[in-house]
């Protein structure tokens, strides 16, 4: 369905506002249901614990770490509680 048809059905005249609302609706849909699932891969660096979420991620489904022993990504579990160590100044 074209954006023009959507605007006709809703009686909207302002294209910019219609575009903004469509984007909002898509973000809302993606935050609730798995309509478009994607994967992102990034390097793990020795001694670094913080890794940012991908910029276009909306809802996290799982996090996996590569098992280099058999070249498979395996889902890792979320910690139920924060670790006792809040910062390690000498992780190496």
């Amino acid at each position, binding site marked *: 369905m074209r954006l023009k048809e*959507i605007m006709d059905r809703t009686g909207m005249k302002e294209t910019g506002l219609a575009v903004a609302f469509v984007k909002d609706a898509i973000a809302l849909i993606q935050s609730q249901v798995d309509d478009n699932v994607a*994967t992102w891969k990034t390097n793990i660096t020795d001694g670094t614990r913080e*890794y940012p979420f991908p910029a276009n991620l909306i809802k996290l489904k799982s996090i996996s770490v590569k098992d280099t022993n058999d070249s498979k990504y395996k889902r890792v579990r979320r910690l139920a509680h924060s670790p006792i160590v809040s910062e390690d100044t000498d992780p190496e």
Partner: protein
Amino acid sequence: MSYDTHKTWFYQVVGRNIELWQWVETAATDTVGSHKVKLPDEYYGKQLIYPDESITNGLMFQGTAFIEPFVDNDPNELDSASNPTLTAVSMGANIESAHINLSRMLTLAVIDYLKAQLSEMAGQVDVKEYYMREFWKKVGDDQSNKRSFMITFPASPFAVK
């Protein structure tokens, strides 16, 4: 070399980041040749440590992503029995002729969302609530269209047919 990562790695969500932790039991090890050896003066006991090795493309996120909202072809129509090739359309003069990159049912839900927002702008909150209910109903219908399942149960031998 990482192994049994589903048992030895954990994560924690902290704001916009995740913190990755590695579970070490008794000692940190390293691989010398094909043998795993315990490192002296390293981690002992059971504890969580920062990642102890570098792994190329070692971390994988899976989740829903923001998609290109407008495309040049209708995503719901086959192109000669094949799925259509969709190219993103950027904001410009022809944006009104672009297709919404959603299924037909979700596009109908988007229409309800727009009506809800317009009703809110007009101060008609009860009408907005009605259209938002319709919005979520159609989103739910779209999902249940993909997740049909069958429930079977044994029939009673004395059931009246």
